[in-house]
């Protein structure tokens, strides 16, 4: 049994293709500002994502990718339409519900890695586990496992400023996997990396998503990255132009 399989959520293994979609985006719209200065970041976007899929969200800069990801991840609320994740309608969740969603169901990988600069790799990866108040020994074992998964065992005590961009993004991925989320959202995860490192990160993402049986929604505008996706959702000026 592989390490990735060992880490898998038992429920995830039972998912079937015919299972209900994990993400339903239904006529979602988001506007910033009002009047003539209003910016329609997302307009009437609808699509669904089945469990286990790796979706590439494609679009040029300013096309609304990040806004859409934030709404799906419960970081922002749509002005119109609904977003349902793992059966929960995100737009109607309370603050507490949103916290639970981000802690237990969804996890993020940021373009700028989003690591806490004063914490070591181990401590950064341990953050989601602390949020779930896991026992210390369980947390330490899982963090060690995740760092091994992303190939950073030797860098466990280093802080972000002491690692390369690729290493930092691996730490970020390990952290995103820590709580075995149902949905992994990555916003331009290779945006700050060179092509080779970016490909390696995408490959890693591809591998862990498959191994963990989770769903991934990754925004990118890199054609090479798009090739690794199961499906491509393309946005232009906030509108869905391809699914």
């Amino acid at each position, binding site marked *: 049994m592989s390490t990735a399989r060992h880490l898998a959520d038992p429920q995830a293994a039972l998912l079937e293709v015919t299972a209900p979609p994990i993400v339903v985006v239904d006529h979602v719209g988001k506007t910033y500002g009002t009047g003539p200065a209003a910016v329609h970041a997302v307009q009437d976007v609808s699509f669904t994502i089945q469990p286990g899929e790796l979706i590439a969200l494609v679009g040029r800069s300013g096309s609304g990718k*990040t*806004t859409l990801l*934030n709404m799906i*991840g419960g*970081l*922002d609320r749509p002005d119109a339409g609904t977003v349902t994740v793992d059966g929960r309608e995100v737009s109607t969740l309370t*603050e*507490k519900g949103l*916290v*639970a969603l*981000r*802690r*237990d169901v969804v*996890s*993020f990988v*940021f*373009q*700028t890695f*989003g690591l*806490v*600069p*004063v*914490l070591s790799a181990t*401590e950064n990866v341990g*953050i*989601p586990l*602390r*949020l*779930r*108040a*896991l*026992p*210390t020994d369980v*947390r330490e074992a899982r963090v060690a496992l995740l760092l091994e998964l992303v190939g950073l065992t030797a860098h466990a005590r280093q*802080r*972000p*400023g*002491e690692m390369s961009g690729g290493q930092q993004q691996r730490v970020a991925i390990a*952290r995103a996997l820590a*709580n075995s989320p149902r949905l992994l959202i990555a916003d331009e995860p290779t945006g700050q990396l060179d092509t080779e490192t970016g490909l390696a990160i995408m490959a890693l993402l591809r591998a862990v998503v498959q191994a963990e049986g989770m769903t991934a929604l990754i925004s990118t505008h890199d054609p090479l990255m798009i090739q690794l996706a199961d499906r491509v959702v393309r946005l232009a000026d906030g509108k869905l132009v391809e699914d």
Partner: protein
Amino acid sequence: MSWSVRIMWRRAVAQRTIIATVLAVAILGSTLLGTFALLLTSSEQRALTVTLTRSPPSATELETGLTIGLNEPDAAIATAHAALAEVTGDLATTSSQWVASPPYELPRDGGASAPLGYLAAVPDVEALATLRSGTWPVAATDAAGRVQVTVPSAAAEHFAWSVGSEVPLESTATQVAARAVVVGVYDVTGDRTRWARDLLDGMGVDPSFPVPGTFGFILTSAYGPFVATPEALLGGGVEVASATIVTQPQIADSSPAALASLRARLDTAGREIAAAVGPQVTSSTFRSRLAGTIDSAQGQLAVTRVSVVVVGLMLAVLAITVLLLAARLLAERRATEQSLMASRGATGRQVLALAGLEALLVAALTTAVAPVLARLLYRLTTAQGVFRRAGLDVDPHLPGALWLTCAAASLVFAAVLLGPLLRRSTSVVDAEQQQVRQDRRGAVTRSGLDLALVALAAVAYWQLRQYRSPVLAGGGIDAVLVAGPALFLLAGAAVTLRLLPLVAAGAERLAARSRRLVLPLAAWEVGRRPGRASGAVLLLTLAVAVGVFSQSFLATWRSSQIDQADVQVGTDLRVDQLATAPFAQSSAITALQGATALSPVAARSVDLGAAPAPGMLPSVSTRADMVALDTRPGVDLVRGSAPTGPNWAAMLTTVAPTDVSVGAELPGTPTALRLTMTATAEPAAPTTRLLGSVVVQDARGLRVTFRLPAVEVDGAAHTVTVPLTTTDAPLVGPLRVVGLGSQLIEQLDPTGATAGQLPDHVDLGVTVSDLRSVQDGVETPAPFDPAAWRAQSLPDRWDPAVEVGVTSDDALALTTRGTMSSLDISTGTAGFTMTTLGPVTVVPVIASDALLDELGLEIGDRILVDVGISVTAEITASAPYLPSMPRGPGFLVDRDLLTRTLVAAGGTDPMLDEWWVAADADAAPTLASTARTELHATATSRYELGESLTDGPLPIGVQAALWTVAAASLLLAVAGFAMSATISVRLRRLEFARLEALGASRPGLVRAVLAEHTLLGALGVSAGVVLGALLGRLVVPLLTVAADGARPVPAVVVHWPWAAEGALLTLMVTLICVAVTSTTVALLRPTTSSLLRLGDDR
């Protein structure tokens, strides 16, 4: 608009929160320092003028005495007025003049010399005396050309004058006759100090006044003043002998320059006035206590100034620390931006110029706003009760010193803001790398600056201990010594930072074991961003230390001033300057409502020396202060802490009498006594007379000697009546006869020559019998207790025999017999005393250490005390200070024992200088007021003195400074922590947003920030309390001094007002929690998505 101004403006708009925070802190710091400037300038000046204005007129007036002689009085008086006006300069004044005639001979009354009387124009006489009958003179003369006079009651009674009586006068200077007519009779009732200008000190009569031209060899009775109008004296109707011109400068609202100028002129005023009036008078004098009053007030102000400056420097340290924290956080906030600018080609000078422009703008705004706020804060402070009562509640306006202080503070703050930018600039990468792993030891610790500060503080503290006070002679301040406490504070707080890494490491270890995120987040922040943490800890340590110190200083200072007042006064209330006879004083004092105990007291300076060895003559070697009071246990009169305990009871028992003396009680409430004296001499001594005296004691233990008329030594019984009082007030009974005196004197003929030859020795027998109490004309026998009496010869050369027998009418008689020499008789020292008072051979005293040092004495040694009669005393105890004698050589003695020796030795001094009254704080003010207004006495209350030493205009600045700094510590701590939280959260908002994206709840993040500040706060509060306590223990005793800057007596006892300190800390912690929580909640409110969208554009 140049690029730098544009950039600065846009940056200020974008970073308005942090800029506003920095500006607010700068304004707060400058405002507080400006308030201190007002305390040191406007407040001081106001305090000085209020003090001088509130001083009694005798302390501030200028007085010139002129002996006119045969000169023209009008011209001399006018010149004196002009000369005094020169001294007072531009100050408004009020003037008055006493003009007195030379003594005039009055109609003879049977004495050897004609009695004398004099006339005087007494200003404001209505306030100084009360008419018994008639009026005050309204014109110089009546229609018959007689001078209108209002005479003292003593003269009216003696000469049987009434309104309308004509008084023939004959000048002793020119023998010119004049006539006066009595238009009224008065009693002296007003302020005795103002009657000091009178020839007879307001007594109305002097039975032993030297006849002019006899060089004091011939005495007669003198009466006066006969109050006349000024016109009567200056218009030529009566001769003028002397004049006293009194000028009272109006000091209220006088400018500092005018006051300083007046003070300078006072040094030479005597010479200048004498030179001006010299040609017009026989002699002149100049007297004024104003220079001393001003000097004393300025000395006290200097003492207050020291405390204000010491506290102000602490405040400056605190304010600069807050600004340093602000500067550091600002620099941290802009580190990336500045590195970026540097990487884009901006030179260090350009970056610095931009920051300098911004700092100058902050300084300019601060300078513009802070003085106005300081003025408001000052007015707010001085509007409070205690400051208002001190007379400081006035608008200081915006003096130059305030602008200067605020501008200087603003510029210092601006420089502080630039400080962090002066460090070597680095690239973006280098700057980021430096943030990865910060050295847990701060820059101060790494550089050893804290240890250097400790060394400096130790030197300053040592100097302060050596010199005892930063007040220099002349009222200046030693800058090094006054900075000592601030250095101590700064050093202590800096050393505290060495604890931070240890605490952080411990917290991290705990965090590592924690299952949750909140506490670890706090621990990581403290441990891994020590720069931010150390600033907050330093600030809170300083603030708490200043708060604890200020409260301790305030409580200790107040307590010490009150302790000093207690020792200075010695009892609750001292009443002196009573003009009436001793028994009348006793009645008047007893009638005061609210006293719980009272005692007559002798408090005076006496000559004393070491008791001589046998065969040696005593030698007076020093003068010392003496206080003789009732020391019996249970007489709770003495106040103030004793050197050996909380009160004086134990120490007083070492000098208290152990027996009680009784006497022959006079039944009822007598107004007089009557007795019979029989004197026999063998051989007969017809040229002698017997001068008797009787000592009567009232219920207060007051022993008054009444002289009896001289009787012939002829074996016949002579009955004499002695009035005990001249007032209607009942005496304080029971009265007892406790002593009898018999003095054999040589009879002189009317020319003063001896009447005949005295025998070599005379066997004298004196019998006193038939003692009776007289009340309302009714006589009641007062039996002698036969066993109680004993006798002593005068001089003490033999043991006279006392016989007790029964007279024919069954009344007990006391008979004393002895032999005396003609030498003793001719010198007037031969006689007996008989007394019921217990024998005292040596009077025990408690001596001050200064007295022992001065005379080289030890406990157990004996000294001779000259109280008119030489009394042998034994030092049974010593103390660093004594009640009412905080400093200098002095001793305390039981008044009963002292007067026993006096009565036995024939002394007649009642040993009554003042009254000590015990009364609680509620009753004392009324008692004091009554004593002043109704008894026309001087009353000194320890409560009032304590209040004047703490809440008076001169020392009130200390309280204002300490309350202000306590409030400032609170405000600056809260502002500093709020700023720390603001900037900390703003700098980490993206970090927090990402944590939210990972599932952290917003309340959890707020709790993390709170936990982080709780950790810092716990360290800061703990260290601050310890540092404040150290400051209180070591520095407060050195800063707490007496009003004149001397070491306080009794010694300072440091107080810890736990309730006030606890309340201050609780309020500080609560406000900090509220500020940090509200700031954090407000800053974390923006949506996570928008922050994430902003990315690294923080």
